[in-house]
Structures are given as structure tokens and as C-alpha cells.
């Protein structure tokens, strides 16, 4: 089969346009974060400043509360990801391997949680958590985020378990292993990639969550990165260099996890799209 030149060129150009559209905003974020303050306005629309500086980064890291926000976000997202993955591997395993009476109710319940607007929980959750002392606390955020992410993670883990042949554990059980031993010794190790993907998805989701963090947290001590950055923006809205340096820093963990889970994106999003 001969390939003609013109469609190939058009194809590559179209791809190039997509790459530019996808990367340009991030490029601009990075560019402004490196532009010295005195050049910010005079060289506003230039593609690259005539001088670059890391001073915005050092300011953000040394003289602002961003390291605290960063640490808070890491604690919240990390704990959420771990707890969700544990709960979701158990429930995903139950949905994948057992047929039991309440199964369709459980699936229905989890689907329902994916449908209704989470924003309608903002007020009641605030009212419920306040007397428990869980507002303005990282623990409160972790509990809320864990519950929000469990349904999707369950469907995701279920799809990974579905991909493992049942003969494996049946063979182990014929050899005398209990079901739980079979789950722990045979199934879990095979699902490690799925576990990594779930961790990544949940971590990114918790890292990005804004509305509940805004509502439940006030003050710098327990602020997560989104809350901190937004407060910073509304207070010091002229320090573009510093804001964008902080933005680039907020991007790093999410981008790292993205690279980690990139291979599983197709599987994960397909599970998410079809099931919830």
C-alpha cells in the first residue's frame, strides 16, 4: 500500500496543533514564573523573557506559607489514596468474585453517588463535622475525600480483578488455601499495577479538590494547596511571578503521578466512564 504525502502532512500538522494547544498554557505558567518582576510588564507578551530568574521560587519556598500547604496537601492526598485503595480493593474484590443478594443494591448505591451533585453536601457536611471538631482539620478532609473517592476506586479495582482468571485462586483453594489467603497471596500481587493506578487516580483527585477544602478549612495552618493558592491570589493579586511559581510547584506531584499511571489511563477511564 502506498501512502500519499499530503494526508500524512495534514495528520502531523493536526497532531502538532493539539500538542501546542495542550502545552501552551503550562508553558506560559512556567515562563512567567521565571520572568523577573521588572520585565513582567514590559515584556508581557514575549515568548521568552530576555532574562530569567528563580527568585520567585525561592521566595515562595522560604517566605510564604506554601511549604505548609504543600505538606498538608501531601498528607491529605497520600492518606486518602492509601485508605481508599485498601477499602476499594476489598469491595472491588467482593463485586468481582462473589455473587450475592445485595450486590446490585451496592452497585446501584455507588452509581448514585457518582450522579448527584457533591456541591449539595457542602452545607450538611460542614454542619455535621463542626461539632465533631473535624472542620479546619486535615482528618476531616481525609474522611470526606476518602468517602467521595471510594465508589470510583471500587469500580476501577473491580475491573482489574475481573481481568485476573478465576482458575488461579480456585486452584489455590483446591490446594487447601482459604479464600482470604488466596486473595492475599495470589490475587493482590497480580493486581499491583491496578493498585498503583488506583493510588494515582485518588491521589490526583484529592490533590485537586477545591470546594470542600474552601468550605471546611479556614486559616493557613490546615490549608491545602488549592485553598492556599486561592487565598494568596485574592490577597496578593499583583505578584504574578510568585503565584505562577506556586502554581508550577502545585503541578509537580500531579504530573508525577500522571506519568506513573499514564499506562493505565485507558483502562481506568474506561471503567470510570462505563461504570460510574
Amino acid at each position: 500500500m502506498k501512502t500519499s504525502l499530503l494526508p500524512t502532512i495534514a495528520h502531523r500538522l493536526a497532531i502538532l496543533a493539539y500538542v501546542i494547544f495542550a502545552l501552551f498554557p503550562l508553558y506560559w505558567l512556567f515562563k512567567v514564573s521565571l520572568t523577573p518582576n521588572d520585565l513582567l510588564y514590559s515584556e508581557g507578551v514575549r515568548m521568552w523573557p530576555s532574562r530569567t530568574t528563580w527568585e520567585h521560587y525561592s521566595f515562595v519556598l522560604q517566605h510564604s506559607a506554601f511549604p505548609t500547604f504543600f505538606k498538608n496537601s501531601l498528607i491529605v492526598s497520600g492518606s486518602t489514596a492509601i485508605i481508599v485503595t485498601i477499602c476499594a480493593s476489598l469491595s472491588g474484590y467482593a463485586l468481582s468474585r462473589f455473587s450475592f443478594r445485595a450486590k446490585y443494591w451496592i452497585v446501584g448505591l455507588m452509581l448514585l453517588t457518582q450522579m448527584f451533585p457533591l456541591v449539595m453536601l457542602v452545607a450538611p457536611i460542614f454542619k455535621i463535622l463542626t461539632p465533631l471538631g473535624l472542620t479546619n482539620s486535615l482528618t476531616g478532609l481525609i474522611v470526606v475525600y476518602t468517602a467521595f473517592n471510594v465508589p470510583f476506586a471500587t469500580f476501577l479495582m473491580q475491573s482489574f480483578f475481573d481481568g485476573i482468571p478465576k482458575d488461579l485462586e480456585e486452584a489455590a483453594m483446591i490446594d487447601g488455601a482459604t479464600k482470604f489467603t488466596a486473595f492475599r497471596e495470589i490475587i493482590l500481587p497480580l493486581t499491583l499495577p491496578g493498585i498503583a493506578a488506583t493510588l494515582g487516580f485518588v491521589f490526583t483527585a484529592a490533590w485537586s479538590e477545591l470546594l470542600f477544602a474552601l468550605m471546611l478549612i479556614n486559616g493557613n495552618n490546615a490549608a491545602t494547596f488549592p485553598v492556599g493558592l486561592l487565598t494568596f491570589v485574592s490577597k496578593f493579586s499583583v505578584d504574578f511571578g510568585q503565584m505562577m511559581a506556586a502554581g508550577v510547584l502545585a503541578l509537580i506531584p500531579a504530573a508525577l503521578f500522571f506519568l506513573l499511571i499514564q499506562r493505565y489511563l485507558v483502562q481506568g477511564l474506561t471503567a470510570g466512564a462505563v461504570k460510574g
Partner: protein
Amino acid sequence: MSMTADVYDRRQDRRPWLKRLADASEPYLYSAPALILIIVVMLVPLVVGISYAFRDIQLLNPFSGGFIGLEHFETLSKDRAFYTALKNTLWWTGASVFLQFGFGLILALLLDKPFMGRGIVQALVFLPWAVPSFLAGLNWAWLFNPVIGPIPHWLFDLGLMSQPGNILSDPQYAMWGPIIANVWWGIPFFAITLLAALQSIPRDLYEAASIDGASWFQRFWSITLPFLAPTIAITVLLRTVWISNFADLIVVMTGGGPADRTQIVASYIFTQAFKALDFGYASAIALVLLVLLLAYSMLIILLRQTLLNKG
């Protein structure tokens, strides 16, 4: 171990009853942590939230809390801001889903063809999806800002603007700001799901069709589209629900302004709860939104069931 094994168990059950009970409760034990979390943190607040819709709950007013019946809904029926928000929600959701889907489908078709460096390109074009939504919002707000961003200057150079101004503060066009940010952020989702569906189409179908002399468009129309249809239907419907609730970009970029021109129902609920601290009224709006979405979601569940039965 599932259906067949269970039936087998029941037919010649030599296990003691205690063991049977333990086996029967096993799936429930596995699901318990997830279920408890969902019920306590999502279902209970949902029910509590619905009850707020009929009560006078203002955070800063210690005398509030009484039952007021349908008063919130009466206010709501006269609330012009709510109708504007409803209209804006339709516009925001429709335009975002349409553009995300259109560009996502084109991207998936482009990536379905093998070429050198496809892995890298794929990682790069999917990257926006990993950007936290608040950062995507801020990033685009900065791009639209004439002080720091290039877009107003480009529009000015193209003669589309009389002077480099901020589109986000222009009542007529402000909604395009969050929509463009949302399209940028959401294209990867559609591209990824559609690409997965495209790659599951048997290749020999295309070969047979091109031997028969079918043009690219004919192949697309009679092979690709029918195969993609279930995925398209489900992703578009689910995405519609999700985007109509997605207030992050709007809260970050415009806060609903200028003059409520970008306020959608979800961001209106958030503003009522977060800024006005009127939890009762916020819950009443939320309840109306829930009813609207529930009707829509029933449609999705029915559709999913039909598609699953067919498959």
C-alpha cells in the same frame, strides 16, 4: 469462585452451619468499609441536606433552624439569579460537552493511526487532564488577563477586540473563558475513552472494506461510528451530568461574575453556602438541581442496562 461454585455448594452442602454463615457473609465483610464510609459521609449528609431545604438555616444566625415548609422554594421561584443560573448551566454544559467531544473524537482518530513518537505525543496531549482543576482555572484566568497573558493581545492584533481587554470581565463573552478552560481540560477524557473503543475495533473489517473500495468517509460512517456508538452515548451522557455540576473552574475564574453572567446552578449553590452562609436556601437550590439531574440520570441507567443486555 462465584455462581457455579455457590450452586455446587448448595447442592451437596456438607459444611456446618457456622461455616455456611461465614461464607455467606464474606462478600459483605469485604464491602463493609467502603459501604460504611459511603453511607456515613455521603448518604447521611444527603438526607440531612434535603431536610435543610425545608428549614431556615443560616450559619451566622443562632436563632435560625426552624421548620419553614416551602418558603425557600417560593423565594426560589421568584429568584431571577436562579433562572439566569439555570440558563447558564445549559449553555455551559452544552457548549463544553459538544466541544470536548468533538475535539476529543478528532484527537482519538488522529492517535489511532500508528506514527513515530506516538507514545510521547499521547502523554503530552493527555497532560492537561492531570492538571488540578483549580490550577487549570487560574492558568487560563492568567492567559486571559491583559496584564500578564497573551490572549487579549492576540485578539487585539486580529482585530477582534478594540483594545486588549479581559474577556472574563466582559458580560457578553465572559462565559467563553471557563468554557475554553474546560474544553482544554476535558479533551483528554474523551480522547482516552474513545481511543480505547477505537482500538477494540477488529482491523480486518477496515481491510475488507477498503478492498471493496470504500472511501475513508464510508468506512468511518459504517464501521467506526456504529462501533463507537455505545461508548459515545454513555460517556456523553455521564459527562453531561458531571460537567453541569462542575463549579471549580467558574468559582476560580470568575466567581460567577460579571453580574452573574457565568453563574451556573452548582456555583450558585456554593456561593449561597460559602459566601452568604445561607445553608437552608443553598440546600433548596441543591434539591431542585438534584431532582432535575435524577430525571436525567434515570435515562442513563436505563440506557446502560439496555446496552449491557445487548452486549
